[in-house]
Each structure stands twice: as structure tokens, then as C-alpha cells.
């Protein structure tokens, strides 16, 4: 709680963390660097790390070729929408399983996960037919719907684990204070589960953001998110490296910003001092 970490230890952890972080991040850094190179330099051996001819040409090309902002907006709406809706459905469900478990809770949880076991390629045709029939092809709501359902089991599972860590006495206290379940969830459970909610939100946002099967197959243009944008850069013919890197960098950028804010919520120790 309040022991100061020795400077030495702090220096060591900092060094270790930055080293590991850098190693893990390196491929992305490399990709971002490539996005500022010419196609030729992107492949050059020996590689140039910083001293190359920096150019933003790739970004210009990318924006000229495809309307980045249109796709980014779609991505934000679709990934954000599906994640939020999934959270709204999942929080009560996870609450229910974490704090009022029955003998079958474990089975229900597993069953939920099993709905994700069907490989999407196996159901593409049926889903496509259904979407065509209901006019959901190339609509944002159609994509939000399918991504929301796809992520729902994951969201529930993650929230379930985090909720399980929260002392139930506190929720009971809220109940004694006359809080309805809704208010109990909003005022007590949710704020206490902030780190869990933040990481769930973040991870599912990314999953939705990067979901490339349904988004590619069920959208055409109007609703097409960034996956479609990216799919127009991994070209089978022609050198595409720098441009793909630029497009990918652009595709990551918004979620990086979001990641920055949501991961800051992973603060330590929200439940301390609550119970004896």
C-alpha cells in the first residue's frame, strides 16, 4: 500500500519494462517507419532506421485513393456501437452470473463461448442470405449487430471474471441502502470494476475494429470500415509496402488514441479499505 519502492528497484523495473515494451512494439514501429519511406527504401538491405528520406507521400496517396475518414468513421461507429451494446447486455448478464450463481452457471458460460466456435466461413452463405433478405447488407446496423453478437460471449466472460473479484458485501450494502439493481450496477458495481471494464472495453473494441471476415463480406461501401480500407492495400501485384504501412498506421491511429485513454483507467486498488 505505501511502501516506497527503492530507487534501484524502480530503475530496474523501468529499464526492464521499457526494454520489453520496445521489443514488443518494435514490429509496429518498424511498420510506422516504413510508412515514411519510399517503396524502395522500405525493402532496402541494410535497412535504414532513421536516416532515410522521410516522405509523407504514402499518406497523401492513401488519402487520395480512398476516403480514409469515411472508413474511419464507420469503424468508430461499428466497433464502438457493437462494443457498447455488447457491454450493455453483458454487464447485467455477468453481474447475474457472478453474484447469483447457480449450479448451471458454469454450463451457461461455456455454452456462451461455444456460440463462437462455429468458424465464420462455415456460416457465411446462410448469413449472407439472411442479410440480403432483411436488407442488412452494407448497413452499419447490420455490422454492429453481428459484431455485437460475436463479441458478446467474450465481453461476458471477461466481465464475469472481474466481477468475481469484487466483495459481494459491498453490493449488499447498496441493496440495504435502497438501491435498485439498476442503480446498484451504475453507482456501485461499475465504478468499482473500472479497470476490468476498461480492459474489456479496450480489448473488445480492438476485436471489433480488426474483425475482418464479416466486415469484409457484409459491407460494400456505405458501411465499410477500415478493414475494407486496408484490404485495398495488401495488393497481390506491385510493391505496396510503404503504402500498406501508411494505411495500417492510419487504421491503428484512432484506436491507439482510444487505447491511451482506456488503459489509463487500469488504476490500481479500487477495492481497498472497503471490507474488513
Amino acid at each position, binding site marked *: 500500500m505505501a511502501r516506497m519502492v527503492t530507487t534501484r528497484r524502480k530503475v530496474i523495473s523501468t529499464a526492464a519494462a521499457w526494454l520489453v515494451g520496445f521489443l514488443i512494439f518494435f514490429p509496429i514501429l518498424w511498420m510506422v517507419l516504413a510508412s515514411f519511406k519510399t517503396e524502395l527504401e522500405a525493402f532496402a538491405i541494410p535497412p535504414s532506421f532513421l536516416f532515410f528520406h522521410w516522405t509523407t507521400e504514402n499518406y497523401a496517396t492513401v488519402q487520395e485513393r480512398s476516403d480514409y475518414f469515411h472508413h474511419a468513421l464507420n469503424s468508430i461507429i461499428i466497433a464502438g456501437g457493437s462494443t457498447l451494446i455488447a457491454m450493455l447486455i453483458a454487464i447485467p448478464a455477468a453481474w447475474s452470473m457472478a453474484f447469483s450463481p447457480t449450479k448451471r452457471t458454469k454450463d451457461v458460460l461455456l455454452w456462451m463461448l461455444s456460440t463462437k466456435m462455429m468458424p465464420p466461413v462455415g456460416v457465411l452463405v446462410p448469413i449472407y442470405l439472411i442479410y440480403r433478405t432483411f436488407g442488412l447488407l452494407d448497413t452499419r446496423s447490420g455490422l454492429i449487430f453481428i459484431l455485437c453478437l460475436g463479441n458478446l460471449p467474450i465481453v461476458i466472460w471477461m466481465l464475469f471474471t472481474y466481477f468475481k473479484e469484487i466483495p459481494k458485501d459491498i453490493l449488499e450494502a447498496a441493496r440495504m441502502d435502497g438501491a435498485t439493481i439498476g442503480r446498484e450496477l451504475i453507482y456501485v458495481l461499475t465504478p468499482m470494476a473500472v479497470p476490468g471494464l476498461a480492459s474489456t472495453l479496450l480489448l473488445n473494441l480492438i476485436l471489433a475494429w480488426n474483425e475482418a471476415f464479416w466486415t*469484409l463480406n457484409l459491407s460494400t*461501401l456505405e458501411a465499410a470500415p477500415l478493414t475494407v480500407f486496408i484490404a485495398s492495400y*495488401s495488393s*497481390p*501485384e506491385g510493391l505496396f509496402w510503404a503504402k500498406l504501412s501508411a494505411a495500417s498506421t492510419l487504421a491503428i491511429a484512432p484506436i491507439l488514441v482510444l487505447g491511451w485513454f482506456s488503459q489509463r483507467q487500469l488504476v490500481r486498488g479500487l477495492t481497498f479499505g472497503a471490507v474488513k
Partner: protein
Amino acid sequence: QTTLTVATVNNGDMIRMQGLTSEFTAKNPDITVKWVTLEENVLRQRVTTDIATKGGQFDVLTIGTYEVPIWAKKNWLVPLDKLGADYDVGDLLPKIKDAVSVDGKLYAAPFYGESSMVMYRTDLFDKAGLKMPESPTWDFVVDAAKKLTDKSAGVYGICLRGKAGWGENMAFLTAMANSYGARWFDEKWEPQFTSPEWKKTLTTYVDLMKQAGPPGASSNGFNENLALFNAGKCAMWIDATVAASFVSNPKESTVADKVGFALAPNTGLGKNANWLWAWSLAVPAGSKKVEAAEKFIAWATSKDYTKLVAAKEGWANVPPGTRTSLYNNPDYLKVAPFAKLTLASIDAADPNKPTVKPVPYVGVQYAAIPEFQGIGTQVGQQFSAALSGSTTVDAALTAAQSATEREMKRAGYIK
């Protein structure tokens, strides 16, 4: 006001077309064009699902020579007979035109066409005292590749596709096999992988790559090889003719001024190891915007479009491989030293008679049957295993044979 949704592949030429759309809409103010540009595999999956389920998401499709005959027979495509008087169908290269026609009717308008050829480094050849004939034999290529290999300097005699996939290594290997007199199926659809011709093909390929190929060849596809060649790592590269313009573009290639071209190799049996492919524009049956779509297709594949590109971006950038007139155009020939060879390569490939021995299928580096993609991918995996050394040539061929038999039986071609 009509809005056309055009699904297209993300190749340079298509993207250029996208950039020039305004020229079309300026002339046709009642038509708006929207683009869906996708990577090849995604595009194929997307377009196929849509057309097969009548999803109606697209008005103009970009498809290859593989799909055209299959889809046309299913009546999924609108025959393009209203392309306009000045379209000049006769100007299309005959091989290409054949590839996109069924029963004499044009079902797709070729946007650009390609075959394959040899690209090689003139400087390295000179240094080694070798001279590339215009139409080399495999023996020459193999021999030269070995001589040109200098692993310590990071130069490899030859770069060839090795990554598994019907459109990756199998495109190349099928074309190569054709030149060795092999074929996929006999007239009764019996797979032919146990034939000596296939064995010769694969043995040559594997030995050659082992001795003169770059490391990691079994996962190299078009792009990887292009990168290697442009970086000066390959003395020879046999691949699509469109690559010619990339390797001679100084912005992308370090060896732009040292590239020579030759016809794909042969073994003297009358077939060169070259393929034929054309990305073409087609209109799905059931479309309610056929008229506008045809207008657009006519514009995009017309001679005028070629001129438009030439005016805006220079002759080097016009879509190649579709029209005879282009290859008679002195302006083009001046900037494209590979033009003549490209034309010759395209002429040398005949989808209707791809192999030395007769075959029941259409297509040079593929067989235009729906089952081919799956079979090709499986066979491609076996061959890339042989290349990586994880299996022998014989075992790979046996496995390919049985896998193909299995699929063909299931599909009902053979009992």
C-alpha cells in the same frame, strides 16, 4: 441519376482508373460511380458470394479469365453486346478476347491482360559472359541460373514462385509443366500427376531452386520475388508481364536500367511456359443498371481510355495487354521496351489449347472448372513442400495425384 458500384481489384491500373473516374462522370452527368477496391482474394470471395446469392451489391465486377467462362455458362453475366459502335471489338487481342468470350459472345471486357516472361539482369549476364536468347530453353535457363548464383554476394540465379496457392506457385508450375508437355487432366478428366512430364517439371524446378534460388523460396509469391528482384537479388525472374513495368521503373527498382526480357522458357515441344490472364469488367445478370454499366465498361476499356491515361500519366502507365492498336503505337513502344515481348507472350498462350497433348478444359495456368481453386491450392501445398525439402518430388506428385483424384471423383468428373 444512376449510381454504379464497381468492385475492383487493387492493382495499379485499376487504381489509376479510379482516379480518372471524373472524366467519365463529366461526360455522363447522370451516372455516379462508387468504388470498392479490394485485395484479390477478398474481392473474389466477395464478388462470388454476392453473385451466387444474387445479393445485388455490385453493378460492375472485376473478374479474371478464370471466372468468365464458368460464370457465363451459368448465365450470371450479361453478354456485352451494347458496348457502342466505336468500341472496336476487333481490336482486342484475339487470345484475350477468346478468354473472355463464350460461344463467341463477349461476357467481359478485358481491362488489362498479361502473360509471363523472363526478366533478367543484363549486367550480370554480361559479366558472366552469357547471352539470353529471345526464346530460351529450360536447359539454358537452368544452366545460366547456376552460373549466375553468387550466394556470398547475395545474388541468386533465379527467383520463382514457391508459396502454395492456385494463383501463386501453381500458376507458374502449371505453365512450366505445359512447356514440358504435361497436363492436369487427360481427355477423360483423369489427373496426370504421375506422368513423367510432371515428374520432369517438378524435379527440374526443385533442383533449380535448390541450387540457384533464394532462401525462403517456398513462401515467396509475386510480391516477395518482385521485392527481391528490385533489390538486385535475382539474376532472373520468370513471372507476370506486368512486372516488367515495375522492374524498369526507377522509382521502385534499383536495377531499372539493367533489365532485359525474354519469352518464357520452353523445351522445344511447342509450348512456352507462359500463362494468360486478364482482369476484365463484367455486369452481373439481374442488374437493373445494365445500360449505365455497359457505358462505363465501354469507356474504361476503350482506346480512348488508353489515350486518356497516356495524356494524364504518360504512355508507360497505360493498361497493357488488351488491344492490338496499343502494340502498334510508336509512343508506347518507345517507353515500353518490353511491349513486343509481352505481345509475343500473350500470343504464345492459348487457353483453348493450352498443352501439348489435348485436354478437356479451358485455361492455361488453371483449368476453368469451379473445383480448380481447391484442388490447385492442395496441389500447390504439396509442391511447395517438395520445394522446401520436407517431402520428395515423388511423394509430392503421388499426394497431388490422389488429392486431385479424390476431388474429381467427388465432383463427379470421374468415377
